[in-house]
């Protein structure tokens, strides 16, 4: 097995593209996607202050003080477009009310918004005299967090699974060029051959995952959990699963082209139903049920559980499910490889 591992490392060394594709490209993509993927549950409010009263600023301050919403200043002429295109969900227009010598506000939405009444409550609850009991509420301090990893999670799992397809490619190539037969002739068993190559691929993928994890910590990414090592464990399991799927696929298909088809028609739909292109939690129940059957979702679910409960133990069932699936896939790959070699 060690000889196979050394040989696989040598292949990596001579062909730098492997290392680039397996280790660094995913990390770079993860970092890029962490910034570019915009799915968020943050509501957006547009504020248009047309009032001449100074106290109108207190309403703006109240809205700006809201956490969990994005508040932007909007000009009255852009209001309609912004609402129509959903750039803002709720608009607050503040105007003068000469009868009361104070500002009035109108809260506008184009459909129904779940925060409309909350925004109204904030606007109406604003103290225009600004005589208030300051500093009577003490909120516990929380470390300020950066980018939330949850938005990119499905993408990361997908990319991890596809990165390992190179392993399948390499195995098929060695099989086609009869290199594998020569390796077997040298006395190396089929199991050791597969295990050796898988180990190198797993270590490379795990290195990339760990690198992202470290960078994430350096840049203060928000892992949303008490023990962030839980995230790392789940992603290592994703790496293991990626290797197992790739290994199994290489044993089941004959050519590299078929492996591409396998990637497109099996891994892609798996990722789609697990929230790759649209957030899983917003999917209808029927689609969620389909997604829940795929291992991508087990990884994400494990991480979500750790985020929600703050503990690692609660995610153990998902870890075990993933491990069991990996064992099954490894077993299929080994048996199939043995059969093909015998025939």
């Amino acid at each position, binding site marked *: 097995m060690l000889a196979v591992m050394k040989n696989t490392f040598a292949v990596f060394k001579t062909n730098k593209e492997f290392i680039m594709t397996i280790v660094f490209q995913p990390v770079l993509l993860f970092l890029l996607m962490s910034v570019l993927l915009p799915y968020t549950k943050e509501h957006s409010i547009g504020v248009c202050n047309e009032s001449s009263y100074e106290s109108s600023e207190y309403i703006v301050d109240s809205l700006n003080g809201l956490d969990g919403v994005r508040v932007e200043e909007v000009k009255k002429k852009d209001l309609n477009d912004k609402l129509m295109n959903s750039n803002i969900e709720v608009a607050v227009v503040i105007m003068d009310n000469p009868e009361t010598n104070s500002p009035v506000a109108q809260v506008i939405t184009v459909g129904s918004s779940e925060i409309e009444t909350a925004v109204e409550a904030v606007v109406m609850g604003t103290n225009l005299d600004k005589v208030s009991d300051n500093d009577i509420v003490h909120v516990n301090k929380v470390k300020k967090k950066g980018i939330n990893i949850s938005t990119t999670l499905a993408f990361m799992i997908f990319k991890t699974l596809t990165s390992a397809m190179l392993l399948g490619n390499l195995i098929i190539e060695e099989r086609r060029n009869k290199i594998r037969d020569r390796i077997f002739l040298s006395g190396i068993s089929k199991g050791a051959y597969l295990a050796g190559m898988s180990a190198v691929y797993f270590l490379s993928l795990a290195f990339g995952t760990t690198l992202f994890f470290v960078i994430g910590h350096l840049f203060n990414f928000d892992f949303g*959990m008490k023990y962030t090592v839980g995230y790392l464990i789940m992603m290592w399991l994703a790496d293991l699963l990626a290797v197992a799927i790739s290994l199994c696929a290489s044993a089941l298909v004959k050519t590299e082209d078929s492996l591409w088809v396998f990637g497109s028609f099996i891994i892609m739909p798996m990722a789609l139903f697990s929230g790759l292109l649209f957030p899983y939690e917003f999917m209808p129940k029927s689609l969620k049920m389909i997604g829940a059957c795929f291992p991508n979702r087990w990884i994400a679910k494990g991480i979500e559980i750790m985020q929600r409960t703050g503990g690692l133990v609660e995610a153990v069932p998902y870890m075990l499910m993933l491990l069991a699936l990996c064992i099954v896939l490894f077993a299929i790959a080994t048996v199939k490889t043995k059969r093909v070699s015998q025939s």
Partner: protein
Amino acid sequence: MFFELMKKELKVYFSNKVNWAFVVVIPLLFIGLFSVALKDYIGADYGTFDDGKEFYYLNVEDGKYVDRLNVIIERLTESTGVCFERVYDIEQAKKDVEKSKAYGVITVNADGYDYYRSPYNETEGGKLIRTMFVEMAQNEIENIKNYPIVVSNNIEVKVSDVDSYAYYTFTALAFTLMMLSVGVSLSIYDEREHQTIIRYRISKGGIWGMLGLKMVVGMIAGAMQLLLSFAFSTFVLGVKWGGKIGWMLLLLMLHNIFAILMAVVLGLKGKNKAISQDMVFLITMLSAYLGGSVTPVYLLENVPVLKLLVKISPLYWTNQALISLYNDILDKKTLYSALISTGLALIMFIIITVGEKKKRVVMIVKETDDKKDKKEEVAA
């Protein structure tokens, strides 16, 4: 002759099951899947306050801060639906907050309030409730109760009908029309691989005869995709294309022509089949993502970097125009979209023409050299 060749091209194109999948399955799958999957998201129904709960703990049984809390509870429950639960063990309550059992714990003291939130996983709903509570808690009861600001209704806003079904009918269709070009690109690469392209180059009709045929096939496939999507969205999803349907079809066809010409360029220039295919896919995926065919465009426009980047995608302009036309608005967006698709198609046309001219010159030079060599050989 033309129709014979056309028949042959169509036969070759539609004998490939993958091409059928691109024409029939992919658009219906994308439109259907995206429309359904993002129905709640497009409506911004994030379930922000769903099952929302807040704990409160009384260190004092009465006093102005207890009274104020009662009014706040009333206001917050009324405006958000979040329920409040009194707890008697503050430490356990804090642990429960960390386990997401509640947004936070409000402790009422004789001199004010303490608010405990989770240091790890405070939700968006939790953040909103916390900040609303802090804002209200600083006011006197009269201010919280009496609503000093009147909410009037004197501004009228046009109502948009764009739900997820309408949005993805147009944006996913524009995306899949672009995806169709993969087949054209591969078909041209095949001609190169089998060296038949050289015969076309030296034939009377020139290379444009062959390219024209492939482009027409691509356009026929595009028209089929359009027709199918129209029927699916109208009869299954209930999307009404509206009075500006002619403009919509025009924009989609222009977009299709650009995508086909782009595929021709990549088919002619790609170093190998996989690279040609990957390039078309990459450009299509990138354009689709930035154009709002995958993620709703307003989300992209809310991200500072993406706000500018989206404009480089031709799909962005097509999608924007289609959505406006769906809302019965014929404005500059339609003009921009038509100009961009036509402009890009022209650029692709120029690239092909210049590239082919160079190739012809090289071929003539090579032919002359070969003749010269042969003459020299004969002479020798």
